[in-house]
């Protein structure tokens, strides 16, 4: 595989990795530096490993509505949705974005190839002959890639390149920019996040422009390795290592991507049955203050009074909140947040007391940014809500100091 974007990474002599059979950068810098950029500035990555497909025709939305657990009829042109594709048993195959774009739908999946996406859709059509008559095309989009721009000030950089409309682009909506490219606002890590979709030549151009314009935003180039830390702080669907434990949306707390009130979707009956029965085990967050000497890893036992009640899914340290955080897969009876009676036993036999926790853990910096009021580069505007409050307080104090006399004193003087 070679394209202009790939050649650009090669030219930069970057450490590469492979996902979905596509070679993309693993890292441009250290994962710590790239993680810091996501949380504080802007990170630019190549996300071309996403499987990409296009489906068009009058029956396209009906076909997709059977294929995924979300309600495709709820999205209109320029809107997108984040949903799940399940198998007959109601187990997750992949998560994916569906974009309603003019007369067609675009599908982006992080965990399936473009061909696999198309095969799945074509197989459904073959199973249900005559139901979805008006399908014009189902095509893999291997000649197109994706850039990922993420971080609290990513909107401001994109405003500079593509215009003011970006600042008002709602979450999970998209727009056409520069004719050749589609910009989708969507992400999984809690920060402002955008995906730029188009042919590789246009994306290679966009990459260069983003790098150049991003300099004053302290933009950092990145690979995929940074995801390990951001996804520890903001958990999302990751097949590995989850697949060996569960692929059930109920157990993994991913039901918010399921619309049970739809007429039907693949896996619906099985899922409803499991919901009625109740999950045996569930995923729940965990935290320990600081960075203890005991290191926990996938599969380590979780104990309650020496009885094994589950296992560790993932665990790691977050310097941002100075906590060791992660997720457990434990008996539903104990899978509630804010409990402090469980321990985990590492492979070396050491035990550590932990507390169950709500996720996500990260207090995303983007929550403090309002594109209408804040700016990273315009020094006349505050950078974030905290600075806005500081400035406001300073202004009030200055006004108070500049006022001629206290009101009480003035009124007494007036009475005289």
């Amino acid at each position, binding site marked *: 595989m070679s394209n202009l974007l790939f050649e650009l990474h090669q030219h930069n002599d970057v450490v590469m990795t492979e996902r979905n059979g596509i070679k993309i950068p693993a890292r441009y810098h250290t994962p710590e530096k790239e993680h810091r950029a996501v949380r504080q500035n802007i990170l630019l990555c190549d996300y071309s490993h996403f499987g990409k497909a296009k489906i068009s025709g009058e029956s396209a939305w009906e076909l997709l509505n059977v294929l995924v657990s979300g309600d495709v009829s709820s999205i209109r042109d320029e809107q997108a949705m*984040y949903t799940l594709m399940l198998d007959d048993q109601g187990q997750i195959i992949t998560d994916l974005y569906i974009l309603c774009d003019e007369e067609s739908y675009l599908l982006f999946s992080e965990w399936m190839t473009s061909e696999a996406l198309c095969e799945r859709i074509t197989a459904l059509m073959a199973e249900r002959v005559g139901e979805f008559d008006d399908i014009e095309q189902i095509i893999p989009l291997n000649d197109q890639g994706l850039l990922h721009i993420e971080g609290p000030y990513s909107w401001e950089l994109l405003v500079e390149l593509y215009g003011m409309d970006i600042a008002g682009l709602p*979450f*999970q909506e998209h727009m056409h920019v520069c004719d050749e490219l589609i910009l989708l606002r969507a992400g999984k890590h809690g920060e402002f996040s955008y995906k730029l979709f188009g042919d590789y030549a246009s994306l290679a151009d966009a990459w260069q422009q983003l790098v150049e314009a991003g300099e004053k935003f302290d933009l950092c180039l990145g690979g995929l390795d940074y995801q390990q830390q951001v996804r520890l702080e903001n958990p999302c669907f990751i097949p590995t290592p989850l697949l060996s434990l569960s692929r059930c949306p*109920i157990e993994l*707390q*991913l*039901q*918010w*991507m*399921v*619309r*049970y*009130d739809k007429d039907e979707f693949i896996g619906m009956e099985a899922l409803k049955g499991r*919901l009625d029965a109740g999950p045996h085990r569930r995923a729940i*967050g965990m935290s320990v203050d600081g960075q203890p000497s005991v290191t926990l890893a996938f599969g380590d036992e979780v104990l309650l*009074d020496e009885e094994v009640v589950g296992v560790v899914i993932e665990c790691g340290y977050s310097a941002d909140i100075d906590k060791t955080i992660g997720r457990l897969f434990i008996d539903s*009876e*104990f899978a*509630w*947040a*804010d*409990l*402090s*009676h469980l321990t985990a036993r590492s492979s070396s036999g050491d035990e550590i007391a932990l507390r169950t926790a*709500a*996720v*996500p853990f990260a*207090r995303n910096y983007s*929550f403090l940014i309002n594109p209408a009021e804040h700016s990273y580069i315009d020094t006349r505007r505050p950078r974030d809500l905290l600075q806005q409050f500081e400035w406001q307080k300073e202004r009030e104090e200055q006004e108070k100091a500049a006022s001629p006399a206290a009101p009480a004193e003035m009124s007494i003087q007036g009475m005289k």
Partner: protein
Amino acid sequence: MDRTELEAAITERKETLLNVKRGLIERLNLYHTPEQIDDDTPLFGSGLKLDSVDATELLVLLDKKFGIRVGEGDDPSYMRSVNTLTSFIIEKKHSDALVNSNDFVPSVEQ
């Protein structure tokens, strides 16, 4: 936390979560049942996809259903998920109970 305290904490959490979910469904006219809403479901953005108008409804819900008035000093991150909202309610309930119990303790001056 001993086993009895653990069971009490679980009972309190389950009851509060159920009340939060029922409150959200009623006040925001959601299409879910409580069992279909996961505890870690995000309230805004993805998840329940609430907007700024719904945020005001949340404040009314906290006031009317749980007797909680949100103050300026309260960390707004309680609005992130069903679970964080539940933790906020439980914490408030406990701190209010502590304040009220102190109210009834006669001071030395009395």
